[in-house]
């Protein structure tokens, strides 16, 4: 893309397509991204703090080239552009996501600086997770992750998405393809500080009989847009995602979890638990789309958000787009609430204070997805890390 055509493209594209329906509004504050869209490239990487740095990390993406520690059982490669891909790689950048989907994806396509390619060979069973870390820096940082899970393979991948106090702008795009009967457990730890607005977009494409289990723990930053798109393209594909979301004081976290059922007898289950602290702002949106060909599919979205403060906001927008009557199950439920007086009274009569109850609830939300545990991390330590960034 020539410089001129890139700027022309940015001028033409919007951050999100639909904005002024009677109810839809911008849940993401795109102005924060727009203010920094021409920011210079970052040259120094902000260090990864403990306890994240204590993990056995196999690939680290920062301001420069990706640092890779190879493994005998997985094909791992650092990439700067598509030409760096190993010859056996069939998944190229932007095969699963359109560059021109929005202004921010166009920005990423033009400017991303480092990435990693992970290939789990067919029929292998990998219990020891591959750990990939995406850091941030002062200035713009863009990371691109490509993951291929071969036919019949079983794999685990931990993705650490960290952005601290340094001021900048970060985009992280992950494209994941699961071949027939492949299984992937994706564990994602997202911790963002006040320094950068972050656009994090994962697209997963599932062939027939493939199964994807996603466990996410996200502590939002100044403005985090965290979007997952699951494409169930083959018969009997299955995705199950559990998400723990914590919006700390001073943070804004907009999460989107979409499932597109394109083939028969596919299933998706999306469950979200969220907590809003202080003046935090937390949104969970999700669209489950079942097209006419995806007969006898099942989909459900559950989204529960607890608001713990007088100044917090919690928004739940679970959507269904069902294009056939031949549907096995299609449902969603959502609740945005705080602790009711009755519940509080009951627990106080058992000797707990309001603070105790809120701390217990927040902890249960933090642990709900199982992401921290699966990554070998202590949930409370991650919460403390998130809080320290805003302290």
């Amino acid at each position, binding site marked *: 893309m020539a410089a001129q055509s890139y700027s022309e493209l940015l001028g033409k594209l919007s951050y999100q397509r639909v904005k*002024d329906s*009677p109810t839809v509004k911008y849940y993401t504050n795109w102005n924060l991204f727009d203010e920094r869209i021409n920011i210079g490239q970052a040259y120094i990487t902000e260090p990864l703090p403990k306890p994240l740095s204590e993990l056995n990390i196999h690939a680290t993406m920062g301001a420069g080239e990706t640092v890779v520690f190879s493994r005998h059982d997985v094909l791992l490669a650092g990439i700067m552009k598509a030409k760096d891909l190993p010859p056996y790689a069939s998944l190229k950048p932007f095969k699963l996501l359109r560059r021109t989907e929005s202004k921010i994806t166009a920005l990423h396509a033009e400017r991303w600086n480092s990435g990693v390619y992970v290939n789990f060979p067919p029929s292998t069973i990998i219990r020891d997770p591959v750990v990939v870390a995406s850091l941030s820096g002062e200035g713009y940082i863009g990371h691109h992750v490509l993951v291929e899970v071969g036919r019949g393979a079983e794999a685990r991948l931990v993705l650490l998405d960290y952005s601290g106090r340094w001021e900048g702008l970060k985009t992280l795009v992950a494209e994941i393809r699961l071949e027939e009967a492949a299984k992937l457990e994706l564990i994602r730890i997202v911790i963002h500080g006040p320094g950068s607005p972050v656009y994090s977009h994962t697209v997963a494409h599932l062939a027939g009989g493939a199964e994807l289990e996603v466990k996410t723990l996200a502590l939002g930053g100044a403005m985090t847009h965290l979007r997952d798109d699951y494409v169930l393209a083959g018969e009997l594909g299955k995705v199950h995602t559990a998400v723990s979301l914590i919006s700390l004081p001073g943070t804004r976290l907009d999460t989107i979890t979409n499932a597109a059922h394109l083939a028969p007898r596919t299933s998706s289950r999306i469950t979200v638990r969220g907590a809003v602290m202080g003046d935090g702002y937390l949104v969970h949106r999700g669209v489950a789309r079942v097209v006419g060909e995806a007969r006898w599919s099942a989909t459900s979205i559950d989204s529960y958000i607890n608001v*713990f403060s007088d100044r917090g906001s919690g928004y739940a927008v679970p*959507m269904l*787009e069902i294009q056939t*009557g031949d549907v096995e199950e299609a449902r969603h*439920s*959502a609740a*945005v609430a705080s602790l009711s007086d009755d519940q509080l009274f009951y627990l106080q009569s058992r000797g707990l204070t309001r603070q105790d109850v809120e701390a217990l609830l927040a902890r249960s939300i933090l642990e709900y997805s199982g992401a921290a545990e699966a990554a070998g991390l202590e949930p409370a330590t991650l919460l403390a890390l998130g809080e320290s960034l805003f302290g």
Partner: protein
Amino acid sequence: MTIKLRDKILPEKGVEELLGYAVPTKTTVELRGRISRSLVEEISRIKKEPDWMRRLRLRSLELFEKLPMPNWLRGIEELDLEELTHYVKPEAGIAERWEDVPEEIRKYYERLGIPELEQRFLSGLSAQFESETVYSSVKKKLSEMGVIMLPMEEAVKRYPDLVKKYFLRVFPASDHKFAALHAALWSGGVFVYVPPGVRVEEPLEAFFLIGRAMEGQFEHTLIVADEGSFIHFIEGCAAPMYKGYSFHDGMVELYAHKGATIKFTTLQNWSKNVINFNNKRGIAEEGARIDWIEGSIGSRITYVYPSTILRGRGASTRSMVVSVVKGPYLKDTGSKVIHVAPDTRSRIINKSISVDGGINIYRGLVKVLRGARNAHAHVECDSLILDSKSMAFTYPHNQVDEPTATVTHEATTGRLGEEQLFYMMSRGLSEDEAKSLIVLGFLDEIMAELPFEFANVLNRVIQLEFKKLGGLG
């Protein structure tokens, strides 16, 4: 008696068939073409309006010109506002007796059984044909209690201070392009005022008919229930069959003062020629209640989102919508509630049925503003899709800025349960009968809220729409 009456109201024909093909009617004025300042001024002049209303129309026209076309609307590509007739004044004036309504117009209402309904169940009735009211009558008892029910134009002239206080204050013209268009071109509709403490137990009704293609109808209904009063208002709408399409862009504004209750029921049965855009909003003050009940059966495309702003402490609302789409048509509906005050309550129940390629869209909003302490909201949204080519979309938005509020939402989309069908068939029902019963059972919660006679009407309309499912009656 009820069964007989019901049969008379709706024999074994759909409403469109019942009304037949449009017949020419005499008119004195027809304004069509570009929506301009001179067109708006001409409508105002014909209506002999006070200057404040003329200026209000012109301000709305400016807004219409400035506001963008909503980019979320589906299916309005064929709508060309410039080719519509925006104002049609029938030759007939406003009659107080049905005998005085010209025969060709009266026949439409008689085929629908409206005069009989009025006689038996209603406190008052207003009938609009094209752009103007052709019949208006209120029972003497109501007038004696101080209840005002007048065609909107009459109210503007006779009670300007009262009308000015509320008109376009509940639903401002600046909200969106079609609200501004309505405000610039409005014609017809009803004004109702219920004095403090007065209970209007028998419903009032307004019935709107569009009698020709390529026409826009822009009626405005404004209901003000003063402190502690009660009113049930019913609006019905229909159109005969014709070639081409027509456009409906009506508005309903409700204002429930302290402790008042307004129940607003709509039985929308436009023909498949009508693109229906209806703007409905109410404001409930302290302890007041607004109930919306909507049976949305007809039309080619419908956009309607009954909304309530709960402005006073302890105010409440309930919105129940049945939306049926049979055939290649679209309904974009949904309820909205804004909780502004503490201890407010809302409940939204939306049921949709899509069949023969029909598309139902639910687009809802529950917004709890900071300070609306202990607000409670519950949304239920169920969709039935009866075949593989029909669709249902659900877009609910739950936006909570108040931590002591509780907002819950449940939605399901499904098909007729095989187990339910099997059970009912094992009890001796045919498959068609079982299906028909399941559909009516699905809607039962909403049917129970309608006055008995109107529930029967809606029941029959749905049976007619789904008659291939069974011959229940």
